[in-house]
C-alpha cells in the first residue's frame, strides 16, 4: 500500500485539467494529451487485496442510508464490489 504523496501533483493536475477542458468543450483530444492524462491519473496505481486475500471489513451507508456490510450485501456466491470515481460528475 502506498501512503506517500507524490511531489508532482501540480503537473498531474495540469494534465488532468487540459484533458478535462478539451472534453468539456467537445474538442478532439490529441493522443499526447490523452496519454499524459492517463499517466497523471494512473501513475503508481495500486489494486488492493489479491485473489486469496481477505478484503478489509467495511460498514457504509447505501443510497437509502442503510448501513451495509459484506454480510448483508453478499449473495450465496458472494459479491462484486465495484469501486468507481463519482456518481456526481
Amino acid at each position, binding site marked *: *500500500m*502506498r*501512503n*506517500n*504523496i*507524490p511531489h508532482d*501533483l*501540480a503537473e*498531474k*493536475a495540469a494534465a*488532468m485539467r487540459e484533458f478535462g*477542458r478539451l472534453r*468539456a*468543450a*467537445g474538442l478532439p483530444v490529441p493522443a499526447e494529451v490523452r496519454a499524459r492524462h*492517463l499517466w*497523471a*491519473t*494512473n*501513475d*503508481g*496505481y*495500486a*489494486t*488492493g*487485496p*489479491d*485473489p*486469496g*486475500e*481477505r*478484503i*478489509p*471489513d*467495511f460498514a*457504509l*451507508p*447505501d*443510497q*437509502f*442510508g442503510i448501513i*451495509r456490510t*459484506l454480510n448483508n*450485501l*453478499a*449473495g*450465496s*456466491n*458472494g*459479491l*462484486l*464490489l*465495484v*469501486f*468507481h*470515481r*463519482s*456518481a*456526481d*460528475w
Partner: protein
Amino acid sequence: MLEKNGVHIAAISYDSPEILAAFAQKHAIEFPLLSDKASETIRAFGIFNFNMAPDLRSYGVPHPVEFLVGPDGTVVKKYFVPNYQHRVTGSAVALHEFGTISSDAPVVALESGALTVQIGFPSPKAFAGQEVGFFARFIVKDGWHIYGSSVPANYAATSVTFDGPDVVSQRFELPTAEMLNLPALGETLPVYSGSFQGIGSLVLKHPLPEGKLVLPGHLRFQQCSNTVCEPPQTFPFELALNLEPFVVSERDLARTSKSQAGRQRP
C-alpha cells in the same frame, strides 16, 4: 446475469448518500450504492488515488478496481483496467467465472466439415470503452484435431481475432492443449480434439456512437486427421453489439453547452 449465479453487486464511491440516491433514482439503479464519504474504505483497501491534488474534485477517488469476493470476504478475482473509462462488463465477469450466456446473446456458427465453432458475446449490451467478454465453443469430429499455440511454422495455431478500428485490445485463451506424438513425422504437437471452449475479452474504443456496432473478426485453424492434414483456413465472421448511450452527468452537460455557446471557462 451475476444475480442468477448468486453474486450480488454493490458500488462504492466517495459521494454522499443523497447524491447516490438521486443518481440511483435517475438511472433506475437497484443495487446498493455505498457512500464512502471520507474515502476511509477506499484507503483501507489500499486503492486511494494519490495522484489527485487536494483542490481537485477528484481528490479522494479510488483506482477503479472491481473485486469478486466470496461470501467469507476472500477475493476470488479482481478486475482493473488502467483507464477509468474502460470498465469490465458484468456479463464478462459472469462469463469468465460462471460460463453464463444470456438467451439473446449474439452468436455465429462456423462449420468446416471436421470442425464446428460457435463464437459469441454472452450479452448483446455494451458501452463504448468497455472490456467485453466473448467465447468460442469448438466441436471437432472424431478422428480429427486442430492445433494449440507454439506449433512449428508450417502449422496454424487455432485463434479467434477481432478486426477493425473499434477494438483497442484483445486476448483469447484456450484450455491447455493435449500433446500428440506423431511418430511418422517425428513431431509432438499441441492439439485439441472433441469439444472444448475458449474464452476471450476485448476492449472497445471510446467514444463510439450508440446503437448497433458490427465487429468483424476471423477464426484461424488447421484441421488434420491421423492420415490427412488440410491447409490452414481463415473463416471471417461478424458479430453485433448494441452500444448503450453513455451516462453524462448534469455538470458535464451544462459545461459542454456553455462552451458550445462560446463562453470558455477561465
